[in-house]
């Protein structure tokens, strides 16, 4: 029964990833078709203009609807994984990355709900999610199983969940800042011009970060409380702790940069991208290359 549930969870994971891929294609179609818009606007009359405008938009709306479906399957995949393993489903890299991706997708859907004009950023948000899920589903995949004794604590559900959600938020914020920089730089004009307005992207990155940062802080504090009970000290500069500290300092710098004349937009965005880079670095390099107390990857 439990193994069937585990298989079911794996299939849902693959299905969710496939659906995100489909959504990304729909987004990309809308994005690409938006180029055809300008000549049509100039040349053709009102009816032609309407038809060229609605078709890409239909793809865009479909992309969002499909993403919602994917997120629902993804959530069920994670939940059934937990049921099959009879524990909180964030005990190894596969599950952890799955949770981060779900958080990123849900964040993106909330963003879309509040400002639908952000939709052209869709392909670029779903792309890193797909890359992460592809890695998680292949090289990082491990079958369901129990976790080692140190992970058996209710702090795991609190610490790892909040880390996952804040990481997911920061992925979207990082992409928004990258797109902002692209949009502002003017290079790749064909792509950049179709992105949401620069200040909208910048505001998006900032708004997500100010939610993610306190959550990330909370996650680090719960990690410290747990480490005090599990490892004998609340902070020990374990490699993962160290890079989390680095990320925290960089995001603190981002918030300060936002309040400093001359740093407010462009440089601040670079700082946010740097923070994003440390999050990804912490996720892969520290878990898989450096040996530390957080080496729960279940691989290598």
């Amino acid at each position, binding site marked *: 029964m439990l193994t069937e549930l585990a298989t079911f969870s794996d299939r849902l994971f693959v299905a969710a990833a496939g659906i995100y891929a489909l959504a990304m294609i729909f987004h990309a179609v809308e994005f690409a078709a938006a180029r055809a818009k300008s000549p049509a606007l100039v040349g053709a009359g009102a009816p032609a203009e309407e038809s060229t405008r609605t078709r890409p938009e239909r793809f865009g709306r479909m992309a969002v609807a499909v993403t919602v479906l994917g997120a629902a399957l993804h959530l069920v995949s994670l939940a059934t994984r937990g049921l099959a393993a009879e524990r909180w489903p964030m005990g190894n890299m596969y599950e952890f990355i799955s949770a981060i991706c779900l958080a990123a997708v849900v964040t993106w859907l909330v963003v879309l709900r509040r400002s639908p004009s952000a939709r052209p950023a869709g392909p670029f948000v779903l792309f890193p999610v797909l890359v992460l899920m592809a890695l998680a589903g292949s090289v990082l995949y491990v079958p369901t*199983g*129990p976790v*080692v*004794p*140190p992970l*058996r*604590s209710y*702090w795991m559900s609190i610490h790892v969940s909040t880390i996952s959600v804040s990481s997911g938020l920061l992925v979207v914020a990082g992409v928004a800042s990258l797109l902002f920089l692209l949009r502002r730089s003017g290079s790749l004009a064909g792509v950049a011009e179709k992105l949401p307005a620069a200040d909208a992207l910048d*505001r998006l990155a900032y*708004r997500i970060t*100010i*939610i993610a*940062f*306190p959550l990330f*802080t*909370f996650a680090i*504090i719960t990690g*410290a*409380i*747990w480490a*005090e*009970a*599990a*490892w*004998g*000290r*609340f*902070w*020990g*500069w*374990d*490699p*993962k702790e*160290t*890079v989390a*500290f*680095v990320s925290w*300092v*960089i995001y*603190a*710098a981002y*918030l*300060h*940069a*936002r*309040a*400093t*004349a001359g*740093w407010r937009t462009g440089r601040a965005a670079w700082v946010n991208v740097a923070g994003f880079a*440390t999050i990804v670095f912490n996720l892969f390099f*520290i878990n898989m290359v*450096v*040996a*530390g107390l957080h080496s729960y990857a279940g691989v290598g």
Partner: protein
Amino acid sequence: MAPTETPTRAHPQRDSPTPRPRLAGVWAVLRNGWRGLTSMRTALVLLFLLAVAALPGALLPQRSLNQRLVEEYFADYPWLAPTLDRLGFFDVFAAPWFAAIYLLLMISLVGCVLPRTLEHAAALRAEPVATPRNLSRMPHHASGTLDVGLDEAVERVRSRLRGWRSVERPDGAGRTISAEKGYLREAGNLLFHLSLVGLLIGVAAGKLFGYEGQVIVMSGGGQFCNTGILGYDTFRAGLRVDGTDLTPFCIRLDDFRAEYRPNGQAESFRGQLAYQSAEEVASGSDEWRTHRLEVNHPLRVDGNRVYLLGHGYAPRFTVTWPNGEQRTGAIQWRPVDQATLLSEGATKFEPPGITDSEQRRTSQLAITGLFAPTSSGGDVVTSVFPALLAPEVAVDVLRGDLGLDDGRGQSIFQVDQRMVESGALVRVARANLVPGESLTLDDGTEIRFDGVQDWAYLQISHDPGQEAVLVFAVLLLGGLALSLTIRRRRFWARLTPTDDGARTVVELGGLARTDRAGYGEEFARLRADLLDPPEES
């Protein structure tokens, strides 16, 4: 260095009137230096430096975490490691340059936050600023006419602005109301930064007055009392700890149990602990309280914590000399493979009853080799499972001078190889034994492998600063949440009665002082409530 969205508030020091420098040069240098240090830009640079400086702590092996990896690094990069070592890269978080960065950052923070605290305290007492002459220039603006007299209109605005700090001022024939809200943003911001300082002080207190020691305790009644540093196998003392002031509580490991899944993955470790607090020990009580010691479930006693870090096995041997004398020894052997708990060690014996030191030195015994909790069987013993399913030892028995008398400490897990090389210690037997089996040496000495005892690797930690750190961490988080969610905003209303006094012209203006995004909706609600009263709609 506290973040805010308003440029003029980012550098509060710069707004202060410049005192006329009398001792011109020195004062100017000091003042400019201080302003530079406490400016937001410096804080930003220091934050980046802190982030960059911490990175080698994750990328290079650190002494505080794993001495062995540092040694490997020295072996792998002999041309680079000594230089890195001189610069402190293997002890990043104890390096002076790392401390310099965070101390400068803290000074910068205090220098920025203290004046802002005073400023905020003044702002809390001050009245909201006067209504600007031209409200239509405000980012948010609306106007309308109410079909009520001035007093009623004022009352309406006043009641809507409950919860705002507001003040009314006469304005020609009419009145203005200035209101401001969101003071908690700055309060949260200040709380966050001051908590950061408190947190650092808490951490420093822990580093000064805390200690941490590890000790191996035998299951089946092994005892440890926290009376001094010598009782520990390893001990890391805080800078102000000399070991004379430890809390002398006692623990006893009555039983230890490890369970494993069929694939060898650990299922649970459980130590049955008995303990007495220092007070109970002093009172001579023989009552012991019990605690189930597990991973994630430390014992907390007298402000100390006892953790279960690991476990292993101690094979027990009995040596019977030809004269009938017997000695039994069981000392921990060290796991060389954490997955199967294959262990190595050296159990050492001295022949009893021999007083002649020369003779003593030639007849000491050491039983060294490998221990497998679940042996693979066969001639070459290796372990296939970490639990005690089929224990077996593969031992060499060495006889001669163990070199215990030369005053140097030696490993409890090994014999002194120089004694072997010099020929003072000679191998006299080699055998694989399962519990109950024995071997006999050429002089008739019999060595029996009796069985196996568990031992637990415990850590005792003392950190007097950690409660303070937790409190400050929670305050920090609360301050952060306040400062990032609350918006500081201003609202003005100018009410002017029409000439007949029956109606009132209302002009509204709004300005977000911190984060423009988001005030629009609230302003729209205020406008709707004040200018489109429900009875009219």
